[in-house]
């Protein structure tokens, strides 16, 4: 059964050897102090599993606390995982329906056995000021900081990039974001220079389309953005869609999170470990 249950992970050994006094709860208190906006509730940014008051050995930041990620974090000796997205497969990490699910129990067992703590950092990392931490990381990964301007909506970041073709832009994104599952609508040879993020929903696509050549979504239901953009193209508009996996739009924001954390947490190692593009495409 899998590779999950390691009897004596580096993490358990580390717990035995050192005497760290820092807890996950203390790290979160520092995050709240440094995030630059008032903490609001209700929020998804809560402890999902584990003991917040237990000593931590190291911190992993990541897009999603998948089982594979947790295994890699444990192997790296980090028992505190700060994840942007859920751990238990729903927006609010609702586990009441999962009690009889063998996979849920397997994952919980792994986390408990390795004395791990998972805290979600979603809403307030987006709300972080002066800049949305996720987009700050994304812009840095793309090398687009100097092309960016901020819309009123945090998801409507717009860019004026050096002119290129849709296909070249997509290839550049594929390599810089280390993603394997970009899907496109529009003419590959279309010349493009104005690009905007449109979040995950149709309204944002409609709001930004008049202002740009290319709409970027990182996960949007296919009956929304993809169908909208193909009709835009069919009606004669010179427009295109780049649909990234959700991970490709947000993972680098958690690299940014690790850089940011190191400014005010120095008692334990902090490592960004990408959960990675979940998908591959057959040739």
């Amino acid at each position, binding site marked *: 059964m899998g590779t999950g249950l390691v009897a004596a992970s580096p993490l358990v050994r580390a717990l035995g050897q050192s005497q760290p006094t820092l807890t996950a709860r203390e790290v979160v208190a520092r995050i709240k102090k440094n995030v630059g906006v008032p903490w609001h509730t209700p929020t998804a940014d809560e402890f999902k599993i584990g003991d917040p008051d237990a000593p931590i050995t190291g911190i992993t930041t990541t897009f999603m606390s998948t089982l594979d990620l947790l295994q890699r974090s444990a192997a790296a000796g980090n028992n505190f995982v700060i994840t942007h997205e859920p751990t238990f497969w729903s927006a609010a990490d609702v586990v009441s329906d999962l009690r009889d699910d063998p996979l849920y129990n397997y994952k919980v067992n792994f986390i408990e056995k390795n004395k791990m703590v998972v805290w979600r950092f979603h809403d307030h990392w987006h709300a972080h000021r002066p800049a949305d931490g996720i987009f700050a990381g994304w812009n840095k990964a793309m090398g687009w900081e100097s092309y960016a301007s901020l819309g009123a909506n945090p998801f409507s970041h717009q860019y004026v990039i050096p002119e290129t073709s849709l296909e070249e832009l997509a290839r550049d994104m594929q390599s810089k974001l280390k993603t394997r599952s*970009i899907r496109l609508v529009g003419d590959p040879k279309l010349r493009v220079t104005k690009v905007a993020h449109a979040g995950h929903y149709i309204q944002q696509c409609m709001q930004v389309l*008049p202002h740009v050549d290319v709409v970027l979504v990182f996960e949007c239901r296919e*009956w929304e953005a993809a169908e909208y953009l193909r009709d835009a193209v069919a009606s004669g508009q010179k427009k295109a869609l780049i649909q990234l996996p959700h991970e490709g739009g947000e993972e680098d924001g958690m690299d940014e999170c690790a850089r940011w954390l190191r400014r005010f947490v120095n008692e334990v190692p902090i490592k960004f470990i990408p959960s990675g593009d*979940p998908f591959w*495409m057959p040739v």
Partner: protein
Amino acid sequence: MITSEQLIERIQKNVGVPWQSQRSDGFSDGILFGSADATVTGIATTFTPTLDVLRKALSSGKNVIICREAPSYSRGERAPLFWRNGPAPSKELLDNDPVWQAKQEFISKNNLVIIRLFDNWDARKTDGQLRGLAHALGWEKFHVARAGENAYDPRNVYFRLTTTSLNSLAGDIKKKLNIQGLRVIGKPESSVSKVALTHGLLLVADAERILREPRVDVVVTGDAVEWEAAPYFQDLVSAGRAKGLILLGEEASEEPGNGEMAEWLKGFVTEVPIEWIPAGEPFWVLS
């Protein structure tokens, strides 16, 4: 001669289950655009009425389009999808949108009738979408027979294929459906044989139900929410509890079912030509 209203009455009579009433959100089955009194000149069935599909229908003399997805890029509040999709665009946003304006104008100028048939089609005892997809894949002979169950009962989604690798299976499906945007979770070299085939958007509760059947290696479906069923399968693979997930795309997974729907309609509508006009997958991918 048959009017669009008579067409709907005939569908209601033949669907074999009590017709579900109109929903107040306006996204349910029935006429979404066009006149109930319009004389039907021909019928096109499709997954989604893209502008391109509407043009093809019109140029082949068909004024009625029966579709699964609504023409205005939203399922509205049709199901409490909880941030899985956006709410319907506001009326003001939609009415002022140039893309929607172009489409709406095309529909009204050409007196097209758009009929949505989704919930009632899916409520039938035979899963037409599943049968269409299995047929498109050439998998009928691999369907696991269940005693006392009607073939293509919506609960029987299992197929036993000749053992192959996940990568070969994905490649074979891609070729058979002639699609590009197929996405896979799992190790390419994993050996697979028992497959669950579904369509549309797979939720975690669906996955749990499907996997209660023993020894299912792979689930093939349309799409999965990337913070729900997608990581659920990543975790299943890491825990050694399944080999993978293959996502065909919404259109690719549902479109053959709309071909099935055209054949079904021909059984009781004989006055006008009926044609399945596939929308085709919306995406292309980098090679």
